[in-house]
């Protein structure tokens, strides 16, 4: 019984009993695998110059295609940033074209089901609809799942967490075989920048706890607990100020870039530089690197740069 089938059978039972206690331990036991990082030919792929979907085609190709990550019959959780009720040109959410293309690649690789969700900040229906992501994901055949009710989340413990020792994690992340993290690169008031690790805040229920208990440490703690199998950073349009919500389209510059990596720390480090800032300024990246979640030393990594 693999993780998915275990989860599925459990969920059916739990839907009737209303008990979710079971899944906490399950989540811990299988978390933090660094499997894919050993088999990919590059530590980081940086693509530049094309439309978001096209850049992904080229980028994933350099990593051996989506079949490297998704095997036939597996389920995939795609977690974009859908935090805000703003239109795509405001770059407050992940590029919907990119989300669509990632889902298509998953199905091409033989995925049985692809789920898309975010625990949004603004009203979830507004976010899902205005971002264009709901439409894009449904068109590509994915299941769009809400994240606005505590009933979708299950308690997990975060071993080794310094500030965060437990959290309630969305059942889709707990149940999927493959977890693809698709953040958008943005400025951010409290976290300085929101990229891949910060995007994981959208898979838990109680964000207020993170904010009131050393935000940066909590981000690093959770990244150590649940490393996505693949991180795709959307830097096609980048909100340079007033993040994470932004005030107007004038906050956004077009960068036409994309970063893909199995290493969440490396991809965040590279994204900070791409943004024009210094990784030293973003504390959670250091904290995660200190816990060996990933590597900040880009100079020692195998980086593949692609111009489209």
């Amino acid at each position, binding site marked *: 019984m693999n993780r998915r089938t275990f989860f599925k059978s459990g969920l059916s039972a739990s839907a*009737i009993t209303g008990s979710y206690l079971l899944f906490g331990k399950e989540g811990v036991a299988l978390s933090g695998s660094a499997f894919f990082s050993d088999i990919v030919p590059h530590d980081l792929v940086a693509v530049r110059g094309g439309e978001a979907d096209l850049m992904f085609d080229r980028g994933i190709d350099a990593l051996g295609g989506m079949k490297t990550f998704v095997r036939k019959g597996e389920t995939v959780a795609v977690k974009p940033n859908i935090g805000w009720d703003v239109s795509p040109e405001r770059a407050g959410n992940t590029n919907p074209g990119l989300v669509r293309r990632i889902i298509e690649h998953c199905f091409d690789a033989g995925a049985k089901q692809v789920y898309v969700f975010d625990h949004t900040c*603004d009203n979830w229906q507004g976010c899902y609809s205005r971002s264009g992501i709901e439409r894009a994901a449904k068109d590509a055949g994915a299941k769009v799942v*809400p994240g606005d009710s505590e009933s979708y989340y299950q308690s997990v413990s975060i071993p080794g967490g310094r500030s965060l020792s437990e959290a309630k994690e969305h059942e889709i992340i707990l149940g999927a075989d493959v977890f693809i993290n698709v953040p958008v690169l943005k400025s951010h008031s*409290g976290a300085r920048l929101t990229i891949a690790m910060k995007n994981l805040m959208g898979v838990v229920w109680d964000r207020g706890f993170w904010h009131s208990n050393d935000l940066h440490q909590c981000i690093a703690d959770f990244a150590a607990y649940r490393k996505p199998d693949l991180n795709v950073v959307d830097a096609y349009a980048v909100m340079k100020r007033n993040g994470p919500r932004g*005030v107007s389209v004038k906050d956004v510059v077009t960068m036409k870039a994309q970063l893909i990596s199995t290493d969440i720390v490396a991809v965040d*480090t590279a994204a900070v530089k791409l943004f*024009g800032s210094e990784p030293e300024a973003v*504390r959670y990246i250091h904290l995660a690197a200190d816990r060996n979640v990933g590597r900040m030393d880009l100079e020692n990594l195998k*980086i593949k740069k692609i111009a489209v």
Partner: protein
Amino acid sequence: MELKDLKRVRIVVSILVFVVVTYLFLDLGNTVSPRLSSAVLAFQLLPALTKTLVSLGLWSIGAVAILAITLFVGRVYCSFLCPLGTLQDLVIHIAGRIRGRRKFRYSRPEYALQYGILVITLLLFAAGSLFLLNILEPFSLFGRIMQGIVRPIIIAGNNLVGLLLRGLDSYAVYTIPLHAPAVGVLGSTIVLLLALGYLSYYHGRLFCNSLCPAGALLSLVSRFSLFQIVVDRETCTECGLCEKVCKARCIESKQKRIDYAACIGCFNCLDACPTIGLKFAGLKVAREYNHLPTQETGRRRFIAGSALALGGAIRTGKDSASAGGPDSSSLDARLAPRQLTPVTPPGSRGVAHFTTRCTACHLCVTVCPTQVLRPAFLEYGVVGLFQPKMDYWTAYCTYDCVICTTTCPTGALMPLTPDEKKRVQLGKAHFVKDDCIVVDKKTDCTACSEHCPTKAVKAVPYEKNLRLPELNNDICIGCGACEKACPTKPRKAIYVEANPVHLQAKLPEVKELEQKEEELKEFPF
């Protein structure tokens, strides 16, 4: 078509209206456009009249049409268009099933009580309180029953189905958050529903002829109806069937007369009459047929009732005056100390406009996508009973959402365009620095600034590389995003204090952003 068919027409129309209005309150997916819903509700008498006092529109036509129809044939509104009336008919129908075929008997209408309540209602209205309307206005009471009692049950059912479907890997039915109800509001609604149920179960449409202010108003108008139902003294066989089916209990069959001011126009009598003993007659004839043998007494009773009502009104007025506006003792301890007045919804222009126009139907609460609009109990004081407020503990107001403003049927909320709404300042943010996580724990937070749609709350450099919220209330719109996001407990370090009168916020300044050339060429790693 014969006169007998009028009953069937009434049943069809009333059920149609009932279903549509009920759907407005139970529409979990917000599928009804505000335009459609306001077109339907333009034909609810008191909301339409109240809204007409604010501005003219379809609702004014609706109100005039209802009064005109009443002046023509009587209070058919009560049987055709009033959803609370149909709800009572439902109870009466069930009572008939349970207790056997109900036989009504004539009962002298409580005109004194009825008009007394109307007089107090109007006096209070003139004094700036909708206190009695907020309890008794039939559409609004119906709305509160649907929103407060029926809707949560439907949502619970929805969530149960959603949970079961998730077991089958389907998310087609999503969970809708159920917020804890305001105990005072829910309790009052249950009591009123039980009272209404009791009255209709045992006494037919007594509510409409004693407590209902809309019924009272139409009753007065129907005294002058050009056409009224009369008992034809020639053809009537005195079988008494009309009296037995009269839910308003206004037919005195032995006397062959009808208290037409109490007749709710259900037309049961026309259907029941085995001969053609009932007919419509002109006002002059009707006056003669239906005249009260004891009119003198009636008038005296009315005057006595009015005097009683007046006394009551004065006392209620005193109560509300002594309360001195919002009842501070009812405020929650979790609120910041200075936050005494509730924030009123967008489009309400401020506390004064809102509390003098809102009849507490809770349709805005129903349609609010974030549920930031919640029913209040006594937060506006006794005078503003049940009127909704912005609850920034539960949620915040979406930046360009205007659904409530375009839905309100009474004019308490006037329509705003999204661009207008972005500049309406409901209140101003207040920052309590010492309670802030950043100052208290010396760690980053600024969740308030993250959520702020105008960046009226900015994160500015603070000691040790931290960032601290800083306010610019010129561009704050009082949406409550900062307050909702603030994680401090039990009190928020940032909260919105209401503007008693809504103000105009400045638009956030938007500067051009320069993009460096190199950002488009080389990767900096």
